């Protein structure tokens, strides 16, 4: 071996040594680097793990506290996990029992669920699924479900998760909303008013049947939507009686864009429309406007006829002769008419606002007035007379017809009185009463007077009679037959005088007082009478039928029959006298007949006979007053008396007596 070789070897060894040293040094360096790298990795791993932990718990929290129900199931629908909301919605708790979603689903939904489940597994998710469920409390709920599939690391489906919302209520609300929208649109469509809604471009948004009718548009409201109305006014102007004014007004309204209510439009076809304009402004921005038209033709004509009626009645009220006063609850005068002012003497201005009672009433009448006012408050009407003072403080009598006054709603607001001045009438009435009482008094006086006179006349007759009698008695043997005959004649004359005085007294005592009237049985009366009066043998009185009952003064009726029967008896000159009494029933009266077969009365005397002191035959028994009394009694009983007679054949007296 050579040195060189050695050297070479030596140098090769040295190089090798240096290379190793170098390699060791690099290795050392590398392992240090590796170490620090490992350290870094470790720390970042740690960080990651914490992060994952954080996220997982975060998600758990979200699921558990999520407002909507969250459910995790296996692929057969068995619930694996659920949150509190899910317990509420499904009304089932996994902690208490195992749950399978198919058991909760409404039987109607099975088919749909199976289809959707397939879809879910295929596509990995299903959204907006509406399923009806039946809960334990037997309520049917409509649920909205979004669900997805959970896959394992290998990408195989492992489970399903879903969010379930109870939309039963919101569904109902929605339906209601749609319903009310439908209703509204039907309403608008059939509204009495014509409606036209335009947007800010004057395009039609909405209109209705009425509008098409009014403006004679041969389209349906739906077809009108979107139409441009810029030229509409011009097209419609011919429908109105004042076309130019119509257009001017529409332009003016559209220009101002302010609300207009109650524009009146006269149409050529006679209709009267009332137009409203309502601009629609949202947040200060003009969005369009609404035209509304109302047919007020009928209203207007009603109003017109109402006004003419009112005119008519106002003029009646103003010009009628009756005073009219309207007062409120407190009796304050609200309205008076001209006649009332004239009646009372006051000016209208003086009366209005004053209490009627204070102005007019005489103190003693305020009670009457109060009662009447109370009646009014009770809603009663009535008429009454009252004494009042007019402006000149003269007493007047008014007849007041008062009625309660109501407002349109039927509330009592006071009363209306119609006043008639009856002072004239009242005075007449008072005068009449005065006259009547005077008449009664003078009748009374006359009656007394007649009695006194008759007494005063009769007394001397008695004295003369007694004196004549005494002279006759004392001189029976001294007087000759002629003187005694004359004495008898004096006595007869005295008797006749007595009779006359009696008859005059009877006649003057026949006063008309109905207070003594009562029911009289004429049959009994006449039969009793026949027993009492003197009926000669040769005369018979025949009462043909049962006489009726009448109303009257029995003394007078008695005298009536007595006078007529006596009269008949007196003038019978036949060998066999016959008197017949009969009657007839007339409507309001009874007609009595007393027929005799006496000497009869000549026609010229038929009327005269009833006049006082008209005795036809001046004999001892006749004073000529008997038939006058008869006539007076018949008159007093609202009857008539007349006779039929033939000389030598007999007489029939007819008289009627009111039933």
């Amino acid at each position, binding site marked *: 071996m050579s040195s060189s070789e050695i050297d070479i070897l030596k140098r090769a060894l040295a190089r090798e040594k240096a290379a190793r040293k170098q390699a060791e040094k690099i290795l050392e360096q590398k392992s240090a680097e590796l170490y620090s790298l490992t350290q870094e990795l470790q720390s970042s791993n740690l960080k990651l793990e914490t992060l994952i932990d954080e996220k997982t718990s975060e998600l758990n929290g979200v699921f558990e506290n999520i407002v909507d129900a969250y459910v995790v199931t296996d692929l057969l629908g068995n619930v694996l996990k659920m949150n509190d909301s899910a317990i509420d919605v499904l009304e089932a708790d996994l902690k208490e029992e195992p749950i399978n979603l198919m058991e909760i689903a409404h039987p109607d939904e099975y088919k749909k669920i199976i289809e959707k489940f397939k879809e879910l597994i295929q596509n990995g998710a299903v959204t907006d699924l509406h399923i009806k469920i039946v809960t334990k409390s037997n309520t049917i709920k409509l649920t909205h479900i979004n669900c997805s599939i959970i896959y394992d690391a290998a990408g195989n489906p492992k489970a399903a998760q879903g969010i379930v919302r109870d939309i039963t209520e919101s569904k109902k609300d929605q339906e209601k909303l749609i319903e009310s929208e439908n209703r509204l649109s039907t309403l608008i469509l059939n509204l009495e008013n014509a409606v036209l809604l335009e947007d800010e471009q004057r395009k039609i948004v909405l209109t209705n049947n009425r509008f098409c009718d009014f403006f004679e548009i041969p389209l349906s409201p739906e077809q009108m939507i979107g139409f441009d109305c810029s030229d509409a006014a011009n097209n419609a102007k011919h429908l109105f009686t004042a076309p130019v004014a119509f257009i001017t007004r529409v332009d003016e309204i559209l220009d101002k864009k302010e609300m207009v209510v109650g524009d009146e439009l006269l149409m050529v076809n006679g209709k009267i429309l009332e137009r409203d304009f309502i601009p629609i402004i949202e947040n200060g921005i003009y969005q369009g406007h609404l035209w509304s038209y109302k047919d007020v033709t009928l209203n207007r004509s009603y109003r017109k006829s109402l006004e003419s009626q009112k005119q008519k009645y106002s003029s009646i009220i103003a010009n009628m002769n009756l005073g009219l006063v309207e007062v409120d609850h407190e009796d304050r005068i609200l309205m008076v008419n001209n006649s009332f002012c004239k009646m009372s003497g006051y000016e209208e201005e003086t009366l209005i606002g004053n209490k009627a009672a204070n102005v007019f009433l005489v103190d003693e009448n305020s009670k009457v007035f109060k009662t009447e006012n109370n009646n009014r408050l009770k809603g009663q009407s009535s008429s009454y007379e009252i004494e009042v003072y007019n402006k000149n403080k003269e007493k007047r009598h008014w007849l007041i017809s008062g009625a309660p006054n109501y407002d349109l709603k039927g509330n009592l607001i006071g009363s209306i009185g119609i006043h008639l001045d009856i002072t004239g009438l009242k005075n007449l009435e008072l005068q009449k009463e005065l006259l009547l009482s005077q008449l009664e008094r003078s009748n009374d006086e006359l009656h*007394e007077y007649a009695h006194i006179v008759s007494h005063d006349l009769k*007394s001397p007759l008695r004295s003369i009679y*007694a004196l004549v009698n005494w002279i006759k008695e004392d001189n029976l043997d001294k007087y000759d037959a002629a003187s005694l005959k004359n004495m008898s004649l004096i006595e007869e004359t005295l*008797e006749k005088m007595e009779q006359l005085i009696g008859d005059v007294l009877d006649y003057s005592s026949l006063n008309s007082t109905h207070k003594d009237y009562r029911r009289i049985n004429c049959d009994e009366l006449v039969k009793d009478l026949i027993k009492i009066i003197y009926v000669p043998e040769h005369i018979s009185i025949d009462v043909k039928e049962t006489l009726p009952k009448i109303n009257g003064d029995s003394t007078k009726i008695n005298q009536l029959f007595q006078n007529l029967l006596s009269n008949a008896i007196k003038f019978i000159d036949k060998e066999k006298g016959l008197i017949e009494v009969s009657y007839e029933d007339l409507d309001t009266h009874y007609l009595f007949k007393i027929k005799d077969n006496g000497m009869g009365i000549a026609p010229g005397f038929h009327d005269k006979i009833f006049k006082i002191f008209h005795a036809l035959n001046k004999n001892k028994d006749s004073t000529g007053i008997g038939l006058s009394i008869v006539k007076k009694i018949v008159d007093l009983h609202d009857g008539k008396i007349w006779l039929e007679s033939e000389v030598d054949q007999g007489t029939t007296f007819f008289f009627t007596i009111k039933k």
Partner: protein
Amino acid sequence: MKARNLNILLIEDDAIEVMKMQRVLSGIEQDHTIIEANNGEDALSILKKKDRLPDLILLDLNMPKINGIEFLSILKKDERLKFIPTVILTTSNNQRDLLACYYIGIAGYVLKPLKYEDYVEKITRLMSYWSMNELFIA
């Protein structure tokens, strides 16, 4: 019962009527006494003495001053005098007078007839009635 002699107060303003009464009474059996009064006042003053009250009063209604009915009222108000039977003697057949008299209280009402014979008849009967009657002695 034996008929008594009566003490009669006749209140009558007509002289001939008084004469008639006296003539009738003198013709009958009993010896009745007549005290005459021409009017109500006289009669009252006679009655006021009360030494001897009449058994019967015959009263005409139509008299001057106090009339018959007024007199009757005064009489019937007196505690003692009211017991004297009073018979009205009048020509008046006025129903009102009759009722007024009965209301106040009378023992009879005689209408004077026209004929003197009738008068004698009536008064005779009246006297025989009252003389037989057991009178209250006032």
